[in-house]
């Protein structure tokens, strides 16, 4: 579904990504972790072309992201993305947030888009908030709406860029619950997150990044049981010690 081959990226002389390679098969859930500044968010943003990269290739469903001839907007409309800071549109009601791209990008009718949005809103447990504005919801609720907004486009896969790291602790679980459910339904997912509980529960593989390189790319059992690199051991020891 997603294939990342020898991807490198630099800002001027600063190397952000070096020679990253990995594959995400249909239905797989991949967790990407690593210390901050390791390039994990940049890598996931390269997958739908939000960040350009200088060398290597990324294909999504067989379509090359880096190819200038690719219709990136069309490709992005098929790849869902959830951001750290939710990025709901604050000037629109929740319903409009859910339906605007369905209408303007996919060409669905207003009624169809609204019905689909409400169905997904119900699924993330927020149907009662349909007519509110994003500013009236808690962080956890906003992030659930953001997931519903991405799902409304019927994506072939979902990218999560640290979906819980801007949330208060008591709201993290409500978002993770939605993600776990999604994973169990067979959605192809690539998640940048530090939530190791989530990784243990649903990930097929864990990718560990450090200084722009993919240092480990292993099944979750192998990763948690005995990470091969010292840096990953260090990272896990720190993150799991409490």
């Amino acid at each position, binding site marked *: 579904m997603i294939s990342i081959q020898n991807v490198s990226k630099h800002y001027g002389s600063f190397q952000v990504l070096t020679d990253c390679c990995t594959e995400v098969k249909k239905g797989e859930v991949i967790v990407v972790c690593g210390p901050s500044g390791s390039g994990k968010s940049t890598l996931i*943003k390269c997958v*739908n072309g*939000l960040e350009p990269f200088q060398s290597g290739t990324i294909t999504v469903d067989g379509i090359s992201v880096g190819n200038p001839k690719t219709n990136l*907007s*069309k490709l*992005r*409309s*098929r*790849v*869902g*993305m959830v*951001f750290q*800071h939710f*990025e*709901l*549109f*604050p*000037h629109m009601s929740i319903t409009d947030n859910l339906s*605007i*791209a369905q209408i*303007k*990008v*996919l060409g669905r009718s207003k009624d169809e888009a609204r019905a689909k949005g409400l169905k997904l809103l119900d699924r993330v447990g927020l149907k009662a908030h349909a007519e509110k504005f994003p*500013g*009236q919801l808690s962080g956890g609720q906003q992030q659930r709406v953001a997931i519903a*907004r*991405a799902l409304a*486009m019927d994506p072939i896969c979902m990218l999560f860029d640290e979906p819980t790291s801007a949330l208060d602790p008591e709201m993290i679980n409500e978002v993770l619950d939605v993600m776990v459910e999604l994973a169990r339904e067979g959605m192809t997912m690539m998640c940048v997150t530090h939530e190791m509980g989530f990784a243990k529960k649903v990930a097929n593989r864990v990718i560990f990044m450090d200084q722009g390189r993919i240092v480990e790319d292993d099944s979750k059992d192998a990763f948690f049981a005995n990470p091969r690199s010292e840096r990953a051991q260090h990272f896990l020891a720190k993150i799991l010690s409490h």
Partner: protein
Amino acid sequence: MYEFDWSSIPGALPFLWDGLKVSLEITVTAVAVGIVWGTLLAMLRLSSVRWLGALAAAYVNLFRSIPLVMVLLWFFLIVPQLLKGALSLDPNTDVRLTSAMIGFALFESAYYSEIIRAGIQSVPKGQASAASALGMTYAQAMRLVVLPQAFRNMVPLLLTQAIVLFQDTSLVYVSALADFFGAAYKVGDRDGRLVELLLFAGAVYFVICFAASQLVRRYQKKLNAHVAH
């Protein structure tokens, strides 16, 4: 001691009212064109195509470095000839109003583009990313997501600029166009009551602009309350 004599004002009111309409017409046109053209300039300046940005920056810097009254004078001297030539108008057609409107609009767009540029930059970058991630094109992301938020933040500044612009319309007197100020001047000159007429004109400008700026302040308070919650 100077003796005030206001008697020439009542009879001149219809003429002054026509002048006020000219001032308002110029203001509205310049604001409307200024916002549209200013938005385009702002988007060019923020675009990743470097020469487009440089071109827009040159335009903005040029107009911001020339006194408005000179721009108006040039347009008064040049545009009428061009318009008459281009539209093959009767040489006696009065195109002073049109040329004043064009001059103001082009001049004000430079200022509006700076306000709008700041407004666009005030919208977090993640908003454009989110719009793109949903498959929107650049134009859709701008039109549906970034600009509505930018304009909501900018409305007080845009209106304040419009108030300044309304005052600046008095500069069209250089083309002898009878705007409100010009009309007041003419009446005062004719009746030898310049002081009274100019005091009256000043009072009218003050009332209009002060009332408008109070409205802007009230709107801004409402906006801040809305953002805070």
